[in-house]
């Protein structure tokens, strides 16, 4: 049978048994999705590529422990996320864009310092356009790594606060604070995009 005809369970079993066609099919079937994951977390393309390679190395080493308790794609997705997080821990820290400037500013009486406009209807209507997606990804990349990671784990991977804290080795209070600041900073960056007439 053509390897592309194997279901995920058959594929996993054949990879476990050392079948080289199965190993190639595993890469063919899942590398694209896993690359999307590593690119999401890593700061640059090179790190994303290396993280993908590391993820597959981990997957091939650990395939014996895959027993079908979850979907094969889900299992590999988790490996890709963990690989990217490991890459981030080893990466040099990047210069931070005026971090505090990305938080909203208030007057002494507690009111906003600038007029707040609601650009959300326009933005949502443009969300699927490639220009919008590229601009949003660029904004995500500008977030300091520790805050971007929490944002992605909580709002995209939908990990709970406790799981995120445990994985990152920080307290739940730190996770909540970083998430709030990341959301606020991202809003500021996206405001510049959507109020500036782009994308």
């Amino acid at each position, binding site marked *: 049978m053509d390897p592309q005809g194997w279901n995920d369970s058959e594929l996993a079993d054949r990879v476990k048994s050392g079948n080289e066609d199965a190993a190639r099919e595993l890469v063919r079937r899942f*590398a694209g999705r896993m690359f999307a994951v590593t690119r999401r977390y890593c700061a640059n393309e090179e790190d994303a590529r290396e993280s993908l390679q590391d993820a597959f190395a981990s997957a091939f080493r650990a395939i014996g422990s895959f027993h079908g308790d979850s979907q094969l794609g889900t299992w590999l997705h988790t490996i890709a996320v963990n690989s990217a997080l490991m890459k981030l821990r080893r990466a040099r820290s990047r210069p931070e864009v005026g971090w505090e400037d990305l938080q909203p500013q208030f007057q002494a009486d507690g009111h906003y310092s600038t007029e707040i406009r609601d650009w959300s209807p326009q933005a949502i209507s443009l969300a699927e356009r490639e220009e919008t997606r590229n601009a949003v990804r660029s904004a995500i990349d500008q977030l300091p790594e520790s805050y971007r990671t929490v944002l992605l784990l909580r709002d995209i991977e939908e990990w709970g606060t406790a799981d995120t804290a445990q994985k990152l080795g920080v307290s739940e209070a730190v996770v909540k604070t970083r998430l709030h600041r990341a959301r606020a900073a991202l809003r500021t960056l996206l405001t510049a995009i959507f109020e500036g007439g782009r994308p």
Partner: protein
Amino acid sequence: MTCLELFEFLSEYVDGRLSEAEAATFQRHLDQCPDCIAFLNTFRACPKLVKAAVSEESCPVPPDVVTAILAARSGQVS
């Protein structure tokens, strides 16, 4: 409640982690503050925009990366 105070608890509000009494206090402020309504709407829009931006199911993998993955696999097996 000031706009600053509302902002500080905005994530809890959006995530549904405020008590009924706290949420009611929030709502009373929102009912009379256009700036906070606008900020809340844009704050809520961000996760949707992020999900749309990263929702690609797949990215093209450079052939040299695929080659490296399979070469490493061969090294592991041997």
